[in-house]
């Protein structure tokens, strides 16, 4: 077995706010193999974006505080790197694309210049002409029509989908081993989303890079990911290969989530509902965080927080009802 490219173990992160301590992540462990797409799915406040920020070491401290845990990327411990090492690593070894391409690009520079800057940051000695060629090449790679003209365009002259392509070109500029895509298509229309997802998938195959794909949309995850990790209230509920997760979900939360989605392929009289609301991250209940909304809760669920345990090879869930028997 090849060692994972990224492995996060027992990561716990707190945020100290005016109102109290927010337990954003609690004992998060997952890994991504080389060339793999891991989907990270969950609802608002589940901690999926905080996880991505930790991997990129973009958590502002304070108010954030990494309480414990280890993030190994390509054999190196990200949390103990110097700021300079992190700066060099970002963009070159791992890159990120964000939800909102409108605000991630600087409005006063041309898109070509901005992609060029991303290259120059890591290759300061590159000459003008090769740089231009590289940028054009990247524009072609992400299917931007008419690259020669497009490199001279400013972000506001482009559509949202085109801007997201520019962001992807920028992220790929130095051939990163890991691409973190945080809700990359949430701000886009359905038809454009399909284009961008296809693009990400094609590039991932061509470059052989790994992708951490964060999304709230189970459809996006199902059509993109190799493996899926479901998060709930700062903890991992379940991790499995994509087919196992969608065909035979184990954690009651995953099941609830899948039942709650309106479907295009069949009629549902009423949607299955997960009762109740998310627990307050500043005041978490004892035991399992999902217990109060769970139909299968056992007495032990009120006492002990369930740990992630293997239910079948490659399929882990944190649920007493599944692992207890």
């Amino acid at each position, binding site marked *: 077995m090849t060692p994972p490219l990224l492995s996060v173990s027992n990561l716990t992160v707190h945020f100290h*706010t*005016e*109102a109290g301590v927010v337990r954003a992540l609690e004992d998060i462990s997952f890994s991504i193999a080389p060339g793999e797409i891991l989907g990270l799915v969950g609802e608002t406040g589940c901690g999926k974006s905080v996880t991505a920020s930790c991997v990129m070491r973009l958590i502002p401290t304070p*108010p954030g505080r990494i309480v414990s845990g280890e993030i190994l990327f390509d054999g190196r411990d990200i949390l103990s790197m110097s700021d300079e090492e992190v700066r060099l690593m970002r963009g070159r070894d791992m890159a990120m694309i964000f939800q909102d391409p409108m605000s991630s690009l600087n409005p006063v520079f041309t898109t070509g210049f901005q992609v060029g800057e991303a290259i120059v940051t890591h290759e300061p000695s590159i000459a003008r002409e090769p740089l231009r060629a590289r940028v054009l090449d990247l524009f072609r790679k992400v299917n931007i029509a008419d690259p020669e003209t497009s490199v001279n365009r400013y972000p506001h002259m482009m559509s949202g989908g085109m801007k997201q392509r520019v962001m992807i070109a920028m992220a790929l500029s130095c051939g990163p081993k890991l691409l973190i895509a945080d809700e990359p298509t949430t701000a886009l229309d359905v038809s454009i989303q399909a284009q961008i997802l296809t693009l990400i998938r094609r590039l991932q195959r061509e470059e052989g890079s790994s992708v951490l794909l964060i999304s709230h949309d189970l459809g996006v995850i199902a059509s993109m990911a190799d493996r899926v990790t479901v998060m709930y209230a700062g903890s991992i509920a379940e991790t499995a290969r994509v087919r196992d997760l969608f065909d035979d979900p184990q954690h009651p939360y995953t099941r609830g989530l899948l039942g709650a989605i309106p479907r295009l392929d069949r009629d549902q009289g009423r949607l299955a509902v997960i009762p109740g609301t998310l627990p307050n991250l500043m005041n978490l209940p004892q035991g399992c965080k999902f217990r109060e909304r769970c139909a299968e809760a056992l007495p032990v669920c009120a006492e002990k927080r369930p740990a992630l345990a293997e239910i079948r090879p490659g399929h882990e869930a944190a649920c007493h009802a599944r692992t207890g028997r």
Partner: protein
Amino acid sequence: MADRSQGSLVARRILRNPIAVAGLAIILGYLFIAAFAPHIAPFDPTAQDLSRSFAPISAGNPMGCDEFGRDILSRIIFGARTSLIIQFFSVCIALVIGVFLGALGGYFGGRLDEAIMRVMDVLLAFPGILLALAIVAMLGPDLRNLIIAIGVYSIPQFARITRGSVISVRQNDYVTAARAIGENQSSIILRYVLPNAISPIIIQTTLRMATVLLTAAGLGFLGLGVQPPEPEWGTMLSNARMYLRSAPMVAVFPGLSIMLVVLGFNFFGDGLQDALNPRLKE
């Protein structure tokens, strides 16, 4: 207008900011002195005693005496009262008229807005103190006219701030929702728009208190403010300037008082701004 928890949150943020607390302390002290002037002042501020002309600092006259032998401390204390009256009423004038015009223009837009803002531009085109000067010169120098002059010259600031704030609040869905449930225009402005547009206006009011005091003092200094023997800090400063070489202390105390109160309002206003518009997410 602010609700319970939001109000207490703002209060907590202010109390955690030492500069704002200092500002608040100065303002409270100033209000106290102005309110209880007759009980605090050791002497009648207008009582002359030429034998004590320019009397130095002593236990009886902690700040000494001026050219007519009046106790400077007592004059400062009563001067606080005059300043507060000027500040309060002139800011009130500016607030009421400015917010009214700004809300009207901002909410309805179009020609009305255009007309209101051009008038404001004309007012703003005069250097502030000159405008006030012209008004006082026209109406004659006394306390009432001073208040009117300063009030009028502060209107554009309030109108602009209100207009900007109203325009941004107007875009909210709850304003459209108010139209959808059948609220009438005045009700929309008073119940939905203004309460949400109020924070920059509150901040502006606090900061204006400082500017207004300075303007009043400036006009007093130019002889267009409150007329002697009524104690007023600017007028006191103006009189003291003739004896600056022989008796500098006479000028120092009114000057310090002005500075302290202006600082107090500015500190508090800045603190209020930080507390009302925190960049930090909760």
